[in-house]
């Protein structure tokens, strides 16, 4: 015991006086020794098993739980399914899900933990752009594959060798919306976004691309992600005589804005982003959701796709599996995790258990059919989706349907 030599010191010190403070100091000393003892027991290295470890950093709870929770559920479901079929190339998957609560500092800590300690093969997630941007460099430096479930284009631009993402690019969503507006002859619009990473990125794209489509943004506002009533905000929109409103967020306020617009009699078309791809928001908005137009992946309208659509079998299977297991409707967010996981699994099946080869396999993957679209990766494009991965949808009788252009 290295501390033994100090004990006489301590004792001498103890006998000098017996005031309360010193005894407390003694206690601190013993607690420290105890802590050291426990610590040395705790830090025994884990035994290696013949599994492949896949880490996931997801915001299962906290402000972005509507992303992280379905993502985590999806991953658990997929890992079990693959393991019950004997794993990948004979190795079972060991899935390690870390709940970051959407805090970047935790995502950083977890990323380092997964990479250095668990020595995971790859990381899926994080759920939010802010977290992904924080761990982008960590993954890049440690040569760990990271497939993010977050939207921001900054994740794959500049391209980092080891960082990929599965959600469609924001710019495609913005373009889709503007193309639809051109068809409808809309020129003056109002843009409102929630103060999340998703909203921030969307606002930037909308503002950047508007001139290209001859559209003028007359007002652009950011509201709080926990906003509970936006009457005052839509009143402001009404005063500007906008011809349409674009709302870009992933928070419940998507439903609130729809209601408030109808209530104050602002009867212009409401466009939402692909963040609206969750039937819960339609239910929350009730009658006010009718007629909302938004771009989204095809998961939401899987049943309505023509039978020869390449994505249809994948979408139907994911939707059925998820819904029968968790008794809630599948959302496109869970789909992002599905894509990330399946891309990784397919790359491993093809390239074996060598990280570099798997990375190359992902980068060169073509024609992978996922829930978000058909992925065609390349060294310049670590997202792999094109604008056709979006479909314009609308809400009719409380359900998502394909938008029919007259």
């Amino acid at each position: 015991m290295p501390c033994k030599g100090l004990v006489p010191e301590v004792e001498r010190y103890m006998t000098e006086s017996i005031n309360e403070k010193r005894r407390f100091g003694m206690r601190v000393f013993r607690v420290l020794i105890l802590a050291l003892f426990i610590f040395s027991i705790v830090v025994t290295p884990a035994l290696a098993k013949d599994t492949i470890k896949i880490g996931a950093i997801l915001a299962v709870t906290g402000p972005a739980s509507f992303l992280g929770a379905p993502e985590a559920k999806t991953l658990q479901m997929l890992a079990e399914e693959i393991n019950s079929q004997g794993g990948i190339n004979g190795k079972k998957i060991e899935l390690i899900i870390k709940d970051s609560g959407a805090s970047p500092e935790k995502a950083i800590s977890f990323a380092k933990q997964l990479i250095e300690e668990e020595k995971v093969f790859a990381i899926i997630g994080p759920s939010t752009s802010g977290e992904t941007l924080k761990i982008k460099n960590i993954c890049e430096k440690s040569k760990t594959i990271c497939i993010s479930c977050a939207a921001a284009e900054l994740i794959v631009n500049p391209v980092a060798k080891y960082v990929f993402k599965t959600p469609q690019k924001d710019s495609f969503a913005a373009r889709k919306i503007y193309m639809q507006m051109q068809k409808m002859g809309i020129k003056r619009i109002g843009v409102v976004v929630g103060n999340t990473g998703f909203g921030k990125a969307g606002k930037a794209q909308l503002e950047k691309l508007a001139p290209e489509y001859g559209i003028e943004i007359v007002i652009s506002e950011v509201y709080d992600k926990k906003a509970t009533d936006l009457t005052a905000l839509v009143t402001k929109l009404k005063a500007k005589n906008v011809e349409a409103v674009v709302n870009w967020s992933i928070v419940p306020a998507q439903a609130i804005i729809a209601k408030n617009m109808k209530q104050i009699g602002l009867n212009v078309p409401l466009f939402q982003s692909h963040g609206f791809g969750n039937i819960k928001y339609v239910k929350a908005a009730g009658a006010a959701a009718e007629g909302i137009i938004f771009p989204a992946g095809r998961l939401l309208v899987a049943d309505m796709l023509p039978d020869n659509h390449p994505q249809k079998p994948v979408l139907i299977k994911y939707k059925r599996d998820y819904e029968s297991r968790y008794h809630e409707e599948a959302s496109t967010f869970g789909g992002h995790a599905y894509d990330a996981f399946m891309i990784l699994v397919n790359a491993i099946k093809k390239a074996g258990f060598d990280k570099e080869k798997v990375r190359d396999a992902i980068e060169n993957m073509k024609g992978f059919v996922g829930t978000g679209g058909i992925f065609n990766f390349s060294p310049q494009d670590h997202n792999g989706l094109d604008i056709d991965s979006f479909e314009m949808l609308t809400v009719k009788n409380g359900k998502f349907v394909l938008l029919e252009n007259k």
Partner: protein
Amino acid sequence: MRGRYLHITLLSIFVVAVQVITQITDTTYYLTQLTMAAYYSLVILGLTLLMGYAGQISLGHAGFFAIGGYTSAVLTTYNLIPYKEKAIVKVMASMGMLQMREDLYGGQILNLHPWIAFLLAIAITVAVAYVIGIPVLKLKGHYLAMATLGFGIIIYRIVLGTPLFGEADGISDVPAFGLLPGIEVSGDMSMRIQNYYIAWVIVIVAVLLLLNLIDSRVGRALRAIHGAEDAADAMGVNTAEYKLKTFILSAVFAATAGVFLTHFNGGIGPSEASVMKSVRYVAIVAAGGMASIWGALTMAAVLNFLSLRGYFGSYDDAVFGAILIVIMLFAPEGILRLPVMKNIQRLLRFKPSEGSDGAS
């Protein structure tokens, strides 16, 4: 040897011992979270001085952490290359206030040297703490709690609503902080052991500073304020001034932690400024026993370490909420002073108990 130096020596030995153990057992990765926990401990040490010794609650300390972290992050990531030809930039460059670096993707970045950013961050923190502190510290009880909470919320809102601070995404790609040639605060894996020692040396220096302060005239004045502010005032203690200075000092602790952790993590996000973070700091100070530097330090290091490693899983916030309630209900003096703890300690004794610990 005087008491506090003995404790400091023990703490230092402990810090070294932990590193040696991780080295021997090949588990050096624990040092990452221990380093992060050290910086959070620094915030908590400052808050202990304010809450435990001066008796002033602050539900806004995450705000000061964020001021430090964000100031440094903005100043060290703002690329000055487009202004390279401007006179002021040239002057700053010639004075060695700037540094040139290359990011992972080959882009050139010219930014302010982290030392300058650090000093500016501290200066801003002192200024804000001064301006806020004068009116806030006149308040008591619920009003003080609410005012500090309000301050924290305003900082959070500003950080979340301002494009300069990256809004919801926060700031990424913050460079390493070269303290001295060869010594830098960075999250790089090869720097892990060095950074562990940087962080804990800062904590040890902070503890030393606090212990000296508490034993000095200032400390006695603070305790007098805590006990009975009006009486202290009547006795000629300048309570307002002491409270303000303590407030500023604890804010500087928080901001320093913010700066260093931001460089260590390579980024900062709005979650660092959130109310929940401030509540967490208060929870840990309470768990440590309010007026106990050692208790607070132990709790801060242990709880943050566990939380950062994800041991609490999805119940992270619930754990801190439960700690707050349980401690305040059953052990308002802190865990280390519970009878149970004494029994545990008795088991570890090196010599028979003198058995009169009841006073606490």
